[in-house]
């Protein structure tokens, strides 16, 4: 095991053969995180099942358009990351950082839209303490927002890494690992969007 890890080049080749994107360790984080979010979704649906009327009333206060804009932003950014990682792995990393920068802009846009949305909700006197629906809403989307912020830091790091002159398989795998994290952030948002904005 140690021998395998010490030789980075072989390791990447082995990874490809096994079709595990990124380094293996990130999947501990991704699967762990998705399990916790699955638990979030289950508790939300359980509480909602007990109090459908209250949830429906609070649900009407959310603006689906803002949620939809955010979904589009994250899906586009994920696409840009896919294209960038593809170029990096294919050995054509020259312009790849611009794609990541595009994804980063989409991510910043997501944070901006979220800020607008929350400001409006706070102005309407909605907060963590205003009923079950909103305590779930602010907690879950807040925890997701933290993931987005970490994702933005990761993407910024990838831009620096891609633009470095020294670029080996280790760096390529780092890009892939960062991409995996960003896709998870995207996937979790899609479920959150469906859960809070769409389900009636």
């Amino acid at each position: 095991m140690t021998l395998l890890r010490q030789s980075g080049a072989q390791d990447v080749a082995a990874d490809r053969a096994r079709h595990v994107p990124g380094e293996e360790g990130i999947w501990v984080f991704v699967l762990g995180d998705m399990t916790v979010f699955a638990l979030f979704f289950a508790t939300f649906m359980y509480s909602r099942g007990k109090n459908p009327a209250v949830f429906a009333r609070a649900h009407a206060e959310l603006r689906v358009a803002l949620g939809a804009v955010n979904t589009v932003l994250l899906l586009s950014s994920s696409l840009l990351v896919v294209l960038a990682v593809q170029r990096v792995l294919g050995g054509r990393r020259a312009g790849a950082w611009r794609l990541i920068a595009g994804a980063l802009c989409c991510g910043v846009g997501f944070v901006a839209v979220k800020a607008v949305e929350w400001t409006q909700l706070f102005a309407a006197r909605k907060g963590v303490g205003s009923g079950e629906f909103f305590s779930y809403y602010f907690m879950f989307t807040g925890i997701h927002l933290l993931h987005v912020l970490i994702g933005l830091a990761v993407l910024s790091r990838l831009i620096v890494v891609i633009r470095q002159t020294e670029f080996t398989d280790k760096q390529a795998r780092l890009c892939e690992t960062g991409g995996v994290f960003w896709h998870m952030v995207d996937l979790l948002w899609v479920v959150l969007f469906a859960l809070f904005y769409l389900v009636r």
Partner: protein
Amino acid sequence: MTQGIQKTMAISGAAFVLLLFPAIIMTGLLPPISPMRNANEIAQFWSTNTGLKRLGLVLLLAASGLQAPFGALIAIRIRQMEAGRHSPLAYTQLVGTGLAVVAIIMPTFAFAAASYRPERDPQITQALNDLGWLPFVMNWPAATIQCLAIGFAIFGAAHEIWPRWLGYFNVWCGFIFAAGGLVVLFKDGVFAWNGLLAFWLVAVFFGLWFLIMAWQLWVSIAAPEGNSAASAVAENEPRRSQLQQ
């Protein structure tokens, strides 16, 4: 540092959990009393089975100290992983461990005070109960500091001691432990101090984290003093690692 001492330090992490949870159950903290209970109900709770509860608190205090040697051995591993003469992440880990001991000690004293005079005004007992429960569940930095220090040490390791998945596991646990940090905002639901996400999820992974880290400390004992040259060098000659930068 003999292997015997290292083994004892590694085991103390597992021993902490194996002592902590029975002590918590003896004290009656599991399942946690709801924050929605009124002062009389809480006073009633703290004035029944006082003997067993107080014994549980004595054990809780004894358990807290076991984190110190365990955390110190983790700091040694971080030093072995870090490049350079200085070991900022190892120091961060030690600070986290110190805070983790306090994180158990402080609520224990508040609970002890709550159980100490069953005849007093229930309002005061309720305040002491709050003063115990809030820091008990809310105090996330102690654990998260350690998780992030370990995680970053593994990601940036100059000498590989631990597998990288352990780094990701630690970073993830660091976030899970932070879920308790918001209990002051809730008296009911999954984010209250007796809630599914703020308490039960954190409690399960808190226990698991100690067991997994104790196991990883245990299996890494042979490496530095055995045949793995890289890590043996790290302990005695941290400077050499700078050459690899």
